[in-house]
């Protein structure tokens, strides 16, 4: 009694679900983005740090960086955008830049170098993966408490 039509529709629904899943995989991918206001040498030219940069992500102020400082923000999705209020040198006037960066899918933490970005240098200059150098403290708790009755589970 299963007519071909219902089978077809069922297939279509499954495909739709998988498609939604895939889309969610893409737009849901979360990254932690770090931005360094630090001097940089690239292809022989030297770019020094900016005097002061205030960073707005989704028009919420996230960080105010002086030279050699690092800010951080979390971002869901691949195309990251932020606005920077940059004061190049002490006493200089403020310029506003909105920057769009394509975040690589498989990197959890991403470090952006602000001066390189402002100069419009290629990606390999302003972007590198964040490697957590903090040693992972192996906290050894006994995994898998199968039968114990966990009291504290506030419900």
């Amino acid at each position, binding site marked *: 009694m299963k007519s071909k039509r219902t089978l077809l529709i069922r297939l279509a629904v499954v495909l739709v*679900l*998988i498609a*939604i*899943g895939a*889309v*969610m*995989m893409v*737009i*849901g*991918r*979360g*990254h932690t983005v770090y931005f360094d206001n630090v001097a940089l040498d690239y292809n022989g030219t030297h770019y020094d740090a900016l005097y002061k940069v205030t960073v707005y992500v989704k028009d919420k102020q996230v960080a105010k960086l002086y030279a050699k400082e690092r800010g951080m923000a*979390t971002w*869901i999705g691949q195309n990251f955008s932020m606005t920077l209020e940059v004061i190049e040198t002490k006493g200089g006037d403020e310029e506003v830049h909105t920057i769009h960066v394509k975040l690589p899918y498989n990197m*959890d933490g991403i470090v952006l170098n602000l001066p390189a970005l402002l100069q419009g240098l290629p990606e390999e200059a302003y972007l590198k993966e964040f490697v957590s150098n903090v040693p*992972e403290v*192996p906290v*050894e*708790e006994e*995994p*898998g*408490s*199968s039968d*114990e*009755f*966990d*009291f504290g*589970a506030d*419900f």
Partner: protein
Amino acid sequence: MKKKKTLRPEGNPIVRFIRNNTVPIMFVLICAVCIPLSGFSPSYLLNEIVTRMGRNIFLILCLLIPIMAGMGLNFGMTLGAMAGEIALIFVADWQIWGIPGVILAMILSIPFSILLGLLCGKLLNMSKGREMITSYIISFFINGLYQLVVLYMMGPIIPIKHFSIKLPRGYGIRNTVSLLNMRQVLDNALSVTIAGVKIPILTFAIIAVLCLFVTWFRKTKLGQDMRAVGQNMEVARAAGINVERTRLISIVISTVIAGFGMIIYLQNMGNLSTYSSHSQIGMFCIAALLVGGASVDKANIGNVFLGVILFHTMFIVAPSAGAKITGDSMIGEYFRVFISYGVITVALVMYEAKKRRAKSLAGHKLAQDQLTEDKEAAQ
């Protein structure tokens, strides 16, 4: 929808009202005593109850369908909870955050829930008449398998990348998987705060959708078949309804809903204690449902809402009320667990006793017929 006319059996209504819902009345009394004692401010209490309603109602609703199909209280809902957890582990591993993460987890939990639901349904069909104890043991059995997979297979066999999830020894998942980047994401989406009480509109909307589905489901052919099978399997089979398949589908639906419910619950909690959060879920949900006045063979949406409110108020106020009375806060903790188990025991005993009482009524009627007959003969 036509109104179902039912003759009220005799006996004055108040006594029958009390006899039918002794459990909810008992709870109202307990709460009435404990709330003033606990000294919580009303707004704190309201806030707590609303958040707990948001995270538990979806889970408790999954119990309605198996009750409708005559399978009793489905202790096997922990299977759905586990399916939800496995989906969340993958989503956390792939670092998918926010609402997309929740949606992906729900989609991902469907295949696991269906698989576990089929297994549980098959086993319950093999142990007709003892569904509840069997579903209870199945939840332990699958818990063993779940641990086998999560504690040993994840890592070497099933690729898990993210360091924050994997145990340092290379295989198995940590005891707690943080879902911080997903925490309260559904609740905060369209949340409105009235007089200090945060009301998660989106979550309640999702719950409303499920309530609609359940009421609508009762009116479908499958819903009607389930009600028929629930009341009398032999007659349903004689009418040509495929009894085994109907019961199986009711368990699968319940497990899938339990999977979604668990994801909503964990999203609200913000972290996933991999090995223990699902073990008590079944018991607390069933206790809440029974507190709402449901019984082993009859439950509706009203019972769910009333049950959540009453049960959780008791759950919040008991520890501090206990501390006030006896000076030891542990008493309150034990008290609320005792009440939850006590409620289920009372409900189960009343259900079985009621089943036996119906049988003895016929005898009395016969005796009365006899008396009337003798009187007529005597005139």
